[in-house]
Structure formats: C-alpha cells, structure tokens
C-alpha cells in the first residue's frame, strides 16, 4: 500500500537529506545570512552572518541582552525572523521547521523539565514526542543518562534534583534523539563553579562520544575558551568571530590595570606621557600596552601620579571584547539595555 512505498522511500530520502546536511563537510551545521529580529521598535538582532562547521563547538559570547538568546530561538524555530535566512542541519528554519526540530536538541536557560515526573519519565516523554523508535529508547536512555552521570537517579522525581542535576538531565534529554546540533543557551548560568566545570566536563566528553555540533551561548569569558570558535555579540551584532586563540592574538596587547586615588588625572597623565588611551573599567584605570611587564617600571617612574596597585594580564577574551566595544562585558551587562532583555524575556515566555 501507500505505507510500503513510504517506507521504501524514507531511508533513501533520509540518506539524501543527511548527505546534504553533513555528509561532506561542505554543508555547515548552521548557516545564517543577514538575520534580523525586530520586536516593535527594538532591534534585538541586527543582521548577522555566520556559519558553524559540522562537529564544531561554537560559542556565542556577549552580555545579557546582546541578542544571543533571540538568535538561538530563531535557529530553533521558536521565533520567527523578521528578515534574513538561517539553515540548521541543512534545513531552512522558516520553511522546514519540522525537519529542523527533528535535528536539534535544546537546553534552555530556564529549566523545562516536569518536576512532577521522574527523570526517566521526563526522558521517555521526550522520546515519545520525538518519535524515537521504541527499541532504541531503552539503550539510548541509559547511554545519555550515563553521559551525564544520572543513571542511578533515574527513578527520582525531578523536583528533588539540584540545579546542576536538572541541567545535566536536560543535556541528556537534548541528546536523546541524537540531534545533529545541540543548542545550549547559557548552560551553566546560575550554577556554582564546581557544577559549572562538571557540566563542561560532560560537554567536552560529549564532543568525543557523539557526532554532534554544539552551539552554545554564554556570558562567561572563561567558558568561551572551551569553544573551537566564538562569535562575540554586542547589541544585536557580531563584532568578532574566530577561535579564542586567534581573537586574543588579534588584541596583541597586555592589559594593565592600575588603582589610583585620582583616576582622571592618571588617565590624563597616561595620555600625555605615554600617548596611551586608558579607560575606567570595573573601577580601575585600564589600558593596553605591548609587553606589559617591562612597561610597569617606566610607569612608576614617569607617570607622576600616585599608584596604589598595579596588575598586568595577558590578553583575555575580556580584552577582546573590550578592544571591540570599549567596555568590559560585565560593565556592558550592568548598563546594558535592560529594556531589550525585558522585551526578549517577555516574548520568550
């Protein structure tokens, strides 16, 4: 009957689809062209372009309200783009929403588990929603729960889980249907440092065990270091995109921070004596110089302003952010468009 022809056709079609999605590494896991999202007056995402290669760990770094979550939501077919184009696993996020949904796993910022159900029931529910073949559910379930170390707790009610365990369970759930792309929206936000690093342990292990592309957002600089490549996002735009090492190299300058009683005088003196442009960041006078350690003795000798403390650091992603935006990510966060964030929150309910 019709079902027979359908069944015969399905694997072939799947093969073709998979071939185009990631068979040759030519087709990127995610490709985005001039993507825009506007909420009324507010432009949350202002025309971004990028590609994520297959099996890559790709990070979106930026302060809250930069448009990271909005972008992820568009890629996950939860938010309709205002204009532009995006493809995930080779499928258009607007025209082939179902195909996109079948090929992605999602871990949201806020938990989306059902606390009334056990860990296993949550995963089984997910498996059924995604139509995971019945024979595959049991082995796959054990596997993903082992990856995140929750197999022993499978019979526990999710309501009894800690924040870190919930996040791990969500990662397991996101993996259950073997997605090609796993989206992690701020996977470690609100977790304590130990749990954060254990989550990263799982993510790195995952990368080795599964043939999967990981797309994540974070506003923690240190976490961006785990990514193969990162896109730095600020106010709805991608301002830099490269590997963490290349981005840091592009800054080229060490960062010097000094504490001084009179910041304005110090900034003026730096400009006068050394022709350096300094800024106040997180309460300290901050500037970049090549070979910072050698510069410190000269600084004390020639600045003519009292200095209470000084620190020199190699370029970090924070400096990358600063060199592109003139502010640190934490300062950007504090002054950031709270309005935009609220709009985004409201829309993503």
């Amino acid at each position, binding site marked *: 009957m019709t*079902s027979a022809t359908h*069944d*015969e056709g*399905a*694997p072939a*079609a*799947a*093969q073709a689809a*998979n*071939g185009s999605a*990631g*068979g040759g590494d030519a087709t990127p896991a995610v490709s985005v062209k001039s993507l825009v999202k506007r909420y009324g007056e507010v432009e949350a995402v202002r025309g971004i372009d990028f590609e994520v290669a297959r*099996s890559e760990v790709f990070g979106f770094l930026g302060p809250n309200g930069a448009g990271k979550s909005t972008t992820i939501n568009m890629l*996950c*077919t*939860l*938010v*309709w783009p205002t204009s532009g184009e995006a493809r995930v696993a080779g499928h258009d996020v607007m025209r082939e929403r*179902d*195909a996109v*949904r*079948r*090929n*992605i796993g*999602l871990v*949201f910022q*806020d*938990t*989306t*588990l*059902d*606390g*009334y*159900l056990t860990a296993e*029931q949550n995963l089984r*529910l*997910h498996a*059924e*929603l*995604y*139509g*995971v*073949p*019945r*024979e*595959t559910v049991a*082995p*796959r379930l054990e*596997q993903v729960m*082992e990856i995140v170390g929750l197999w022993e707790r499978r019979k526990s009610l999710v309501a009894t889980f800690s924040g870190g365990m919930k996040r791990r369970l969500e990662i397991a*759930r996101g993996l*259950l*249907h*073997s997605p090609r792309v796993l989206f992690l929206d701020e996977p470690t936000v609100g977790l304590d440092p130990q749990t954060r690093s254990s989550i990263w342990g799982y993510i790195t*292990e995952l990368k*080795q*065990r*599964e*043939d999967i592309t990981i797309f994540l957002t974070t506003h923690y600089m240190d976490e961006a270091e785990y990514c193969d490549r990162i896109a730095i996002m600020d106010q709805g735009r991608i301002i830099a995109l490269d590997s963490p090492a290349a981005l840091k190299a592009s800054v080229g300058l060490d960062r010097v921070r000094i504490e001084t009683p009179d910041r304005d005088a110090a900034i003026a003196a730096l400009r006068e004596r050394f022709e350096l442009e300094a800024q106040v960041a997180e309460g300290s006078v901050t500037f970049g110089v090549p070979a910072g350690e050698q510069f410190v003795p000269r600084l004390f000798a020639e600045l003519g302003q009292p200095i209470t403390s000084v620190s020199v650091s190699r370029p970090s992603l924070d400096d990358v952010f600063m060199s592109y935006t003139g502010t640190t990510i934490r300062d950007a966060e504090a002054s950031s468009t709270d309005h935009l964030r609220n709009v985004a929150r409201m829309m993503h*309910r």
Partner: protein
Amino acid sequence: MATETSQPTTDGQPPRPRAGARPSTGSAASPASATSPGSAHAIAQVRVPTRSIGGELRAIRVVWRRELIRFSRDRLRIATSLVQPFLFLFVLGSGLSSLVSAGTHGVNFKTFIYPGVLCMAVMFTAMFSAASIVWDREFGFLREMMVAPVRRSSLVLGKCFGGATVAAFQGAIVIAIAGLVEVPYELGLILELFGLSLLLAFAITAFGMMAAARITQMQSFMALMQMAVMPMFFISGAMFSVVSLPRWLAILNRIDPLTYAVDPMRRAIFAHMNIPAATRAALAPGVTWWGWHVPTLVEAGVIAVLGLVMLTIAIVEFSRVE
C-alpha cells in the same frame, strides 16, 4: 497499532543498526567510540522519523498521559477538589432543606442540587487542568513541547483530553456517592450522567485552554476562573428551578452553557425516580427556546459544539509563532 506505522522500520529489520541512514557517522563515530573506553558498544544512534499521523497520535497520547501522571501524583489536589462539592451538597443542601421544603414538593433538596454539584466538581477540575498549561508556560515545560517535531494541535488535543479525563474521573467520584442523596444507581442513569460529565469536562477544558493561550500569568488565570465559574454555576439553575424566572435571568440562563449540562442531568435523575409528573414539571421543566423544549441530545450538542469551537480557537492561538 498506530504507533507501529510511524516507525520507519521495514520488513522486520531492527532500526538500530541503521548504518546507512547516516552515512557520515560510520567514519566519524567509530574513532569517537574508540576514544571513550567507558562505552563498550557503539553509540545507539537514533533517527527521528518524519512527521506522520502515528506520530501525532503518539504525541496526543504522551501529553494526555502526562496529565494523568501529574494528577495521580497530586493527592492533595484530588482531595481538595472534592471538598467543595461535599460542602455544597451536605452543608448547604442540608442547611437549606428545611427552608425550601415547601417548594420542593417532597423531593429531597440535596437530590435537586446534585446535578449542579456534579457539574461544578467537573468544572473546577477541568479548569485546574487547563491552568496547568499556564503553569507549564511559567515553568518552561511548555517550550519543551513547543519545539518538538509535532503539530501544536496534537499538543492542545492531548492536553484537552488529559484535562477532560481527569475532570471526568472527579465526576465519577461524585457519581459514586449519588446514593447518599437518593439518586438511584441505575446503569442507564449512571452512564448518562457520566457521559454528560465527560462532555462538559471536555468543553470546560477547551474553554480553559482557549483562555490559557492568551493569559500568561497564573494569578490572572485564577481570577478569570473565579469570574467565569461561579456565575456560570449560579446562573445555570444548579441551585434553583428555571421555572418562572425574571426575564433577564431567564435570558442569561439560556446563554449559560452550563445550563445545558445541569438540565439534562436533573431530568434524567428525576425520570429514574418515582416522582409525580406535576412535581417534575415544577422542579425539572427542561430548557425551552421560545417555547420549544430542547431535547437532551440537542443540549449535549450545544456543549459539544461550544467545546469544539473553543478547542479550535485554542489550537489556532497556540499555533501562532512570534
């Protein structure tokens, strides 16, 4: 059954070693599994089947079952939602009995208000079930369902059936105590009462879902519930006979959907009791439209149509994408 067709297995082949389905994984996955000694066997790859009717039915079932699991876990909710009907039936019913005895022609007042109380029990449970979608939205679980590769209509249907099942279950408990208020346990009557409860449960859940599509906060939803449920209950004639009402109330009574559940239930109960025709005409005269006595089937039809209309609106609302 339906689920079998959705699985893309052909001629009895186990779907797991589907090496051909992902040609790329053959080369990429094997070194990966080699690097992790913890996993002895290769990765159990899953291929999510394309959309099918079986898949949608499965989605409806899974959402429906989740409602039942949640309900069964929430013993307190089961208990508290029974308090109100018992209060009405035994406290208010007994208290008012002597006051109204002149007007009930010897019929127990508790028997008279029983159908209204049954409807109320169903209505409250159904509204609470619909409220859980607001809850799901606040706690994020709704997103997990919304991004699944299934139709939103399946999710709404599953939720609606789940709410209806739970509410009908609550109704069944109230039906079980019918004997305490002199309602006879006769199979035909029990089935009719249960059928009408089920229909009402479905319609009220659909109403709740329709409201929940737009209302994103629990407090607002609860306020709306109070505003909708109590007037519907009072106007429906749950506590009084619809004979010789003031004109404005008679009009409201005909508009109130609950009227069409309370009335057939009461007429059915009285028909199964040994009650003189004159008494029946006074206490359960039946709903009339411009003098025409609306038969039970039409009354059931009114509820069904209203339920379907509201369900359709709910589906359209939930299918919108930002």
